[in-house]
């Protein structure tokens, strides 16, 4: 009788096709030597598979792999664009038709707000 040999490992690992598996199982039912060998390799296989899965040391894998990826959604792009535009004073609201901008006045009002200096009127020569 030919013993199963390495077919036993393939059987344990689910690597046998239906026919070969059936033949191996029938052989095992009749062969004590193969059953003993099967139990030995099953034990060896079990202890290796039971080895703990080790965590790689910190820093081995690049840290950026663990950070969330930022995705530029349309909402984000709009928000950023508006923020940049506001920062540079580029946003222009709708005006009344025919309304004229008096740039000097607007500039003075802006400077007065930014500086917060009530004496700005003096600078403008409006003081009594």
């Amino acid at each position, binding site marked *: 009788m030919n013993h199963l040999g390495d077919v036993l*490992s393939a059987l344990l690992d689910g*690597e046998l096709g239906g026919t070969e598996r059936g033949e191996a199982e029938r052989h095992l039912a009749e062969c004590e030597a193969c059953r003993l060998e099967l139990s*030995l390799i099953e*034990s*060896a296989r079990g202890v*290796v598979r039971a*080895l703990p*899965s080790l965590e790689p040391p910190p820093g*081995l894998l690049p840290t950026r792999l663990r950070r969330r990826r930022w995705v530029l959604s349309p909402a984000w792009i709009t928000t950023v664009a508006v923020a940049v535009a506001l920062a540079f004073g580029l946003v222009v609201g709708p005006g009344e038709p025919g309304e004229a901008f008096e740039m000097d006045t607007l500039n003075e009002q802006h400077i007065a707000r930014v500086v917060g200096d009530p004496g700005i009127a003096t600078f403008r020569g409006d003081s009594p």
Partner: protein
Amino acid sequence: MTDDSTPSWEEVARHHGRKIYNFAYRLTGNADDAHDLVQEVLLRVRRGLSSYTPTSFDGWLWRITRNAFLDEVRRRNRRPTMPLPEDDRGIGAAAPGPEEVLASIRLGEDVQRALLDLPYDFREAVVLCDVVGLSYEEIAGAVGIPVGTVRSRIHRGRKMLKERLG
């Protein structure tokens, strides 16, 4: 990960970094060697991804991993002042990390030592099957041997392991 798309380098590191580390650790029994090997493999993966054509990704990755490992062994053989993986049995001694990692290493010390006693071909087949979890066909692809040889090496490796463990 599917076979019909090329993963990014980050995906490879995220999905396979830990397995590569464990593969290297179980083959060498040494945390520093495992650390170096993972770095080398990820470097090679990064360089190789641009020319990777989707076939079997696992086969491709583990061929790279195995070749990197063997290159390192050969490099050390040329510089005998550095210990060969087989000669270094300082299991866990240099392993940094939390206490529970060290405890798990100690628990598996006997099995690790028995693994290191196996000839390389058998150790590699057993580790790829029982630690990494590759199929016989994937191992055959990675190592470049017929499936029948994989089966034989795994079986003989397990028998030798059992003899050493008693």
